[in-house]
């Protein structure tokens, strides 16, 4: 009993001593905790097309070039590059003194072996086709890489800036290292651990090539699939950053004094797509009527949490974007007249197929239905699951109307490829557009390319195989003390290099 009496104060003292050692209020050296909306299938950038993977690997690996916040390509592992021989050859001068996480220096051999790995069929990269123009890879010295192309390819540089072009160490590729679960790169953070479906832990790479970066000791990705739980995590201080596509919880976050919300344009073009191979939607007047009947800003605000109307098939923040929103303003009278001219009444019911796992699209679909009913079109909704949507709507074009968002990549070609031919799900055929898109692909001069793409976008804006509703915002909720968090909207990738806690 006496012993017990002694134990209690002793225990208390023992508990207090460690806390005294650390002065309170000092900067806590803790990793930045960010919610990830799902478990990545792999951390090997060359074996997947999953966004979740690239959201993580952006911090682990580097690419030769990379996009800045506006989407322009800037040097990364390559200090500079030039197009030679009318675009048939690209020369990269590599950065010197860069090392991988395992200590081996980065050389031109790593670039060559990595690119060969992507092209290799056994790797099974879903992006392999983007590299098909590369015929030969020359490495005259350790800091020079020359890509020999079969034909000039403007989109290639954007491909090399994307997450799936991450450069891996050559000696590990050759020894068959498992990058999927133990990634090794040259990026700002080193991989530490990954508990599947729970968390991914990265720690600072002290010898990163950007001087003074990164500023935080690490990044902890917490895998949380439910958005409302992410929000609660941020509010209760268990998370530092969350990425939201929806503005629903905004009022809740704004009320909290420790949290701030930043608004970023996504690379999405939200559309109401029309199957132009099916009457009555094959009639341009009907498609125009549908465009006149939609209040785009309203749909963006209610269904997608705010955004910017676009008027053509390109997102508002893209360097190639041009504003054609004046072609089809909201005008229900015009819509009714056009429908009357086309002889379309309520006797023909249009079927709107909605991907039911995307709540915003389902919400938008219900709003469209109501708006179209007001101008005298009858629309029936059918919810389908995602795989049915892909096979029935996207592949077989078995629908009248559907609602979806198109993501963009760094190069406009990836968004526009196949449009104007019957290979797209809107089945809109326009030979001029198709040939312009093919032509623009091989032109390296940015201004010449721009002129061609503007012509394409203008025709698409007039002929309206879609209602181009707009580009939505995404919202990033974070601690008020956090500065410098960046998102590259085209790649959907998180950049923690500039993050610091004040």
């Amino acid at each position: 009993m006496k012993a017990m009496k002694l134990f209690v104060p002793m225990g208390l003292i023992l508990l207090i001593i460690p806390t005294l050692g650390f002065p309170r209020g000092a900067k806590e050296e803790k990793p930045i905790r960010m919610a990830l909306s799902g478990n990545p299938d792999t951390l090997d950038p060359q074996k997947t097309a999953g966004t979740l993977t690239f959201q993580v690997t952006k911090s682990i690996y580097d690419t030769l070039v990379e996009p800045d916040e506006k989407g322009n390509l800037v040097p990364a592992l390559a200090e500079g590059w030039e197009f030679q021989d009318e675009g048939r050859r690209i020369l990269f001068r590599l950065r010197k003194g860069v090392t991988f996480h395992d200590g081996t220096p980065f050389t031109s051999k790593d670039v060559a072996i990595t690119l060969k790995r992507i092209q290799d069929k056994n790797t099974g990269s879903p992006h392999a086709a983007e590299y098909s123009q590369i015929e030969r890879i020359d490495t005259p010295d350790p800091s020079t890489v020359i890509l020999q192309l079969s034909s000039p390819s403007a989109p290639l540089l954007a491909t090399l800036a994307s997450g799936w072009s991450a450069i891996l160490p050559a000696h590990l590729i050759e020894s068959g290292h498992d990058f999927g679960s133990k990634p090794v790169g040259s990026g700002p953070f080193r991989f530490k651990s990954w508990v599947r479906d729970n968390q991914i832990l990265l720690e600072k790479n002290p010898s990163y090539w950007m001087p003074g970066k990164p500023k935080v000791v690490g990044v902890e990705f917490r895998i949380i699939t439910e958005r409302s739980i992410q929000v609660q995590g941020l509010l209760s201080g268990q998370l530092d950053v969350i990425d939201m596509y929806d503005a629903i919880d905004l009022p809740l976050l704004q009320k909290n004094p420790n949290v701030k919300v930043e608004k970023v344009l996504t690379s999405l073009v939200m559309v109401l797509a029309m199957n132009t191979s099916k009457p009555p939607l094959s009639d341009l007047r009907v498609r125009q009527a549908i465009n006149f009947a939609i209040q785009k800003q309203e749909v963006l605000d209610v269904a997608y949490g705010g955004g910017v109307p676009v008027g053509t098939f390109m997102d508002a923040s893209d360097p190639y974007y041009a504003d054609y929103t004046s072609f089809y303003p909201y005008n229900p009278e015009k819509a009714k007249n056009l429908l009357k001219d086309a002889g379309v009444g309520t006797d023909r019911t249009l079927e709107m197929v909605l991907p039911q796992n995307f709540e915003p699209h389902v919400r938008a679909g219900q709003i469209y239905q109501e708006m179209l009913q007001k101008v005298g079109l009858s629309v029936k909704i059918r919810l389908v699951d995602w795989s049915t949507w892909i096979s029935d709507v996207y592949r077989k074009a078995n629908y009248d109307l559907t609602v979806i968002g198109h993501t963009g990549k760094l190069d406009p070609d990836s968004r526009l490829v196949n449009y104007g031919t019957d290979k797209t799900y809107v089945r809109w055929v326009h030979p001029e557009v198709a040939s312009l898109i093919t032509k623009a692909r091989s032109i390296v001069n940015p201004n010449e390319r721009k002129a061609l793409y503007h012509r394409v976008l203008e025709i698409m804006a007039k002929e309206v195989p879609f209602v181009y509703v707009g580009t939505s915002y995404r919202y990033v909720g974070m601690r008020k003390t956090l500065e410098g968090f960046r998102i590259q909207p085209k790649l959907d990738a998180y950049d923690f290099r500039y993050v610091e806690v004040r």
Partner: protein
Amino acid sequence: MRIRIRRKRQKIQKFFLFTSTMYLCFLLFAAVGSSYLAPHSPTTQNLNQRLLPPFTEGNILGTDDLGRDIWSRIVHGTRSLLLIGTLSVGIALAGGLVMGILAGAIGGIVDSFIMLLMDGILSFPTVLLAITVVSVLGYGLVQVTVALGIVFIPVFARLVRAETISRLTEGYVESSRALGTPFPKILLRHVLPNMMPDLIAQSTVTFALVVVIEASLSFLGLGTQPPEPSWGLMLKESRNFLYQAPWMAVFPGLALAATVFSFNYLGDYLSEQLNPQRW
């Protein structure tokens, strides 16, 4: 003392019975006269009046994310609810009767085959089976009704079979058969009427189950298609607004819970009251 407790319990029982019955009568009334009870159309959107809280003027239970009146949607939702409930219990009852009587009356290999089939169906989890049937038949109200009907056939079939066998072996039935009464007449006169109480009780309980599963199917997007009102669908749509507009979930949820409770209570009561062993 004991009597007093008993009386008290009876009182509570009576109270619950009364409320349950009243609530179900109200549902029936709401389904028939939805347009009288609901001030707004269940599908009309009013984007300027989104997420209004309950007890706002004109929207007694508030509005949802598209500015639709929640009360009107709940009231109109009763129609599909009762329709699906009644029809699928009807299908299950009819199917169960045929299967059960065939199995019970013929016996032998027919009995084994039918019961094997029924046990096979029963071995699947109910919701999973319903989802499978719906994905084969396609989405929509009719398909969901048929799916739920099929799913619950075994429950009735087993009951009917057991009843049929036990009735057919009773003395009065055997003497009636000895007197030369034709078999169909025996079924109609003796077997069927005797199993009625059990069937009624089973139907009510099944009804409650059907209601819940219909809501789950709508929640999964397989049942009622938007913008038509359905309680399950309303719950699904409310999920994203739980913190901001909890009323979107609370009211359809309450209505659903009350419905299930009422049916279950009534079912229990009926099976107790109609049980011939009481006398």
